[in-house]
């Protein structure tokens, strides 16, 4: 089966006063109808990878790739007009913090219907019905009230569910979720994940789940890419995370305090320069 999204040798660079800074340095992966986790620390380029796919890297940032295809069609550096038809309709993104990604002076209903109507050109009534249906799908108890509410009137967990409802309304093929639950409490987090998991499964979507939380990704995703300094250093089936081979992945896992394994001192990650550039054993076992 051909992949939904195919990326080869993706690079994102920014000119700075002291030369070019490469935020992403040659990332390659295929995404099918699966949950793909992208894990790394701050500055590893995981968010930039997501933004580059959606064409959200602003100049002077530069995006290049040998290949970036959605269903076989090239989507790299499309003109803004064509990108806009694609963004939201076929690939959508859920951001980390609902407080900053929802428009504070627009009702929630208007924000959901706005994007939906732009992509589907339906009547206001149909858009409203769809919005209410989506709010129900993310388990918001009183959708009519929330439809007319402003973002400050809902909680963080509700805001994040609203974001998911908004992003899934036009039925995209790919959802990119950038730290969708990092701002949430654990109990709310699990609920949001369950909703996302169900929607992604029922609709047969491809999900790119960007997170700094290794264990969460291991439980939630099918496959995990581990990023370090702008490159993918290891790719693993999620259930094999415990058998990670790369010293960086092992170091990350060991530096976490664990309830079931008390230690006097936590082991500290010793970073090696070689991780930045050394040859990677299996960039993608799926083959080119």
């Amino acid at each position, binding site marked *: 089966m051909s992949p939904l999204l195919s990326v080869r040798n993706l690079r994102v660079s920014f000119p700075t006063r002291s030369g070019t800074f490469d935020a992403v340095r040659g990332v390659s992966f295929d995404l099918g109808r699966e949950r793909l986790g992208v894990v790394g620390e701050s500055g590893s380029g995981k968010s930039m990878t997501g933004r580059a796919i959606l064409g959200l890297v602003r100049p002077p940032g530069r995006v290049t790739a040998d290949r970036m295809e959605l269903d076989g069609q090239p989507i790299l550096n499309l003109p803004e007009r064509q990108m806009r038809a694609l963004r939201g309709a076929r690939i959508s993104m859920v951001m980390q913090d609902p407080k900053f990604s929802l428009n504070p002076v627009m009702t929630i209903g208007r924000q959901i219907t706005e994007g939906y109507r732009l992509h589907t050109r339906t009547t206001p009534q149909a858009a409203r019905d769809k919005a209410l249906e989506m709010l129900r799908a993310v388990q918001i108890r009183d959708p009519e009230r929330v439809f007319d509410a402003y973002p400050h009137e809902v909680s963080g967990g509700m805001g994040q569910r609203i974001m998911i409802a908004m992003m899934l309304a036009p039925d995209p093929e790919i959802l990119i979720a950038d730290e969708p639950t990092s701002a949430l409490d654990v109990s709310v987090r*699990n609920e949001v994940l369950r909703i996302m998991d169900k929607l992604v499964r029922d609709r047969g979507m491809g999900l790119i789940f960007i997170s700094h939380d290794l264990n969460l990704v291991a439980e939630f995703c099918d496959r995990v890419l581990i990023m370090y300094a702008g490159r993918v250093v290891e790719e693993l089936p999620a259930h094999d995370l415990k058998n990670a081979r790369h010293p960086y992945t092992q170091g990350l896992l060991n530096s976490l305090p664990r309830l079931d394994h008390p230690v006097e001192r936590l082991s*500290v990650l010793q970073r090696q320069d070689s991780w930045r550039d050394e040859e990677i054993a299996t960039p993608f076992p799926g083959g080119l």
Partner: protein
Amino acid sequence: MLNIDHLDVWFGDPPERVDAVKSAGFTVAQGESFGLVGESGSGKSTILRAITGLIGTWSGLIEVDGEKVSGQHRSRAFHKTVQMVFQDPYASLHPRHSVDRVLSETLHLQGMDQIDARITRLLDSVGLGKGFRFRYPHQLSGGQRQRVAIARALAAEPRLLLLDEPTSALDVSVQAEILNLLTDLRRERGLTYVMVSHDLAVVAHMCDRLAVMRGGEIVEVMEAARLRAGDPASDYARALLAASAGFAREGAPG
């Protein structure tokens, strides 16, 4: 070292009054490390803020080292005993003050002598070399900033350190470094910690005992060993533990 009893903290006046902490009570012994866990809005940080005098609207008993405190005013002696480290190292350091200025100002306010030598020693004790002394916050990483914030708190040579989510803004590898630093400092200086966190594993690693909070109330106070054993007494603490254990996919095998 710290004794809290029937502590109520509220914001606003009726009818809009919000009770953030309701009748909370616990004691922390000299040299002990005590954790406060709970979800956002459970009142765990509010307790720390009431202790340090950042919130004035409280009633009940707060006793530090045998001395009762009241209202928002705190004596000089209080600040020599109690210091706080905040969650966000990006927000808690003045962006236009160098590390040197942050520390020398604090030392000066605490009436210390030999400021120059003390700054060198403080930076040493938090694992930053002399090279960091004249840097500004934007020239430091998140972990380095939190080290500066810890150095600032140590400047007064306090005996009780209040830690409000000291590592939740940091990457896990940096978190390990900061937690190790805090462990070492406690052992070397015989410090007492009260640590607020939403991360049960972090609290279990750092603390001897902990209180679980929900909706402003303390649901349960227990030994960290009890948490590790997965055997809290209250339903809520058990539910919180289960939720933290991770996401279980519906209908998935295993």
